[in-house]
């Protein structure tokens, strides 16, 4: 009879990742290029999609 071979644990296959996290994009405290603080009307009027602002009684 053929000897039963115990299956080895399957290690995680490392997947090739297309995108690498770049900390430098978000952690540059000394190099922040401040945009003009002219207020952006469009972004302030964004519409979110959840809830109805609650149901606060007057």
């Amino acid at each position: 009879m053929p000897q039963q071979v115990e299956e080895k644990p399957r290690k995680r296959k490392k997947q090739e990742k297309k995108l690498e996290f770049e900390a430098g994009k978000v952690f540059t405290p000394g190099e922040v290029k401040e945009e003009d603080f002219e207020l952006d009307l469009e972004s302030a009027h964004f519409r979110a999609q959840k809830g109805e602002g609650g149901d606060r009684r007057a």
Partner: protein
Amino acid sequence: MKKMVQGTEHEYTLYCRKMGSMGFDPHTVALDLLRESDLHLAGEFITNGSRVYYDVGHFEVSTAETTNFHDVVVWEKAGEKVLDWLRRVMEDKYTDGATKIHAFKNNTSPDGTSYGSHENYCVSRDVPWPDRFIRDLVPHLSTRIIYTGAGDILRGKYVLSPMAFLTSRVISAETMHDTGILNTRDEPHADGHIWRRLHVIVGDALMNESAAMLRHFTTSAVLQLMEADALQDVPRLKDPVRDLWHNVEVRNPDEWRVELEDGTVVSPIDIQRYYLAKVEPLVEDAWEKRAFKLWEQVLEELEDKRSKDAARHVEWLDRWFAIQAATEGKDGPDTEMMACKQYSEIGTERSLFYKRQREGLVDRITDDETVKAAITTPPDDTRARLRRELCDTFNIEMIDWSVLVVNDGSRRRIDLPDPYATKLEATYATAG
């Protein structure tokens, strides 16, 4: 203080002016990019143990399990930075930097819709529900807004806390309307015989690290006292929702009020000082001493109306000052609303909050290096570390907070019912 597993969930809103005409939804594109990146771990989880997913028009980040009031702030900030990175990648990749993609960490949009920013605390199942929570916790949750409120403009009024403004019940199962100071949702993601997950939905999205730390320090300390039934003499509030509605619209501390069951009217500062005295004996290590001192200081600053000092760690005050500064000399009905929203942008180059942080006007409790490390590393004293280890070891067929199905030659289910466990009790059979 003892360790208490806790975390936060934030629904971030992304906005792009050309979103419709460009034919993409930045929320889903950001998630696609995340899944293709080296921050992705398995399923909806990322390498730092947090869970990131799409939720009804939002990009939601649930932090990894942390065991204390300061780590939770670090991992929350790490989640914010992950989204900020994705936002910048999208700007470069899809618009050549020509179109701004905005990401907001707040709770309302000007059309009146609201969205969540929730805290979760792993509490002993032995604490009677809901009676003990109504008696001991509601007075805390309904008065802590004086220092945990993020500030917002709703229906033309400046309010201390948008989520408190939108609350209409003492207790409720709802999360989108008719919400309560206490929310009854109980998905423990752990052994439900031992733990309840207290889901706090009356809090706001906070940018300020000190304010977030204070919120978690005070609330986890109160919960620890509740587990010991040490708050039997807590002040009983006559009508907490009515007082919440009053206080949330009042910026002058002299006009804040809370009515007790016997008709006595006190200040929410008095209620907070009751808890302060109860928590003092729990304070042991340096972090606890720091947070306790800050709590004491904030109450004094509010009482003395030293608003510029308090604004360093009280977000509703700092947002108010930021709005005044940004709109000075600018007319128009929408300018204050615009500044209010722009305060909550997470992009450091546009955010009014981060501008103030760079100017040293608000206090931090951590630093960029610590947050950077937390983007790729789970907390080392919770189940998040174990999940990461299992994911690094096996092919994962299914993953959730407390269960994984791994493929180690055969399909195997591994339950993780203890959120504090960093090792499996029994060695998983074929791991080698």
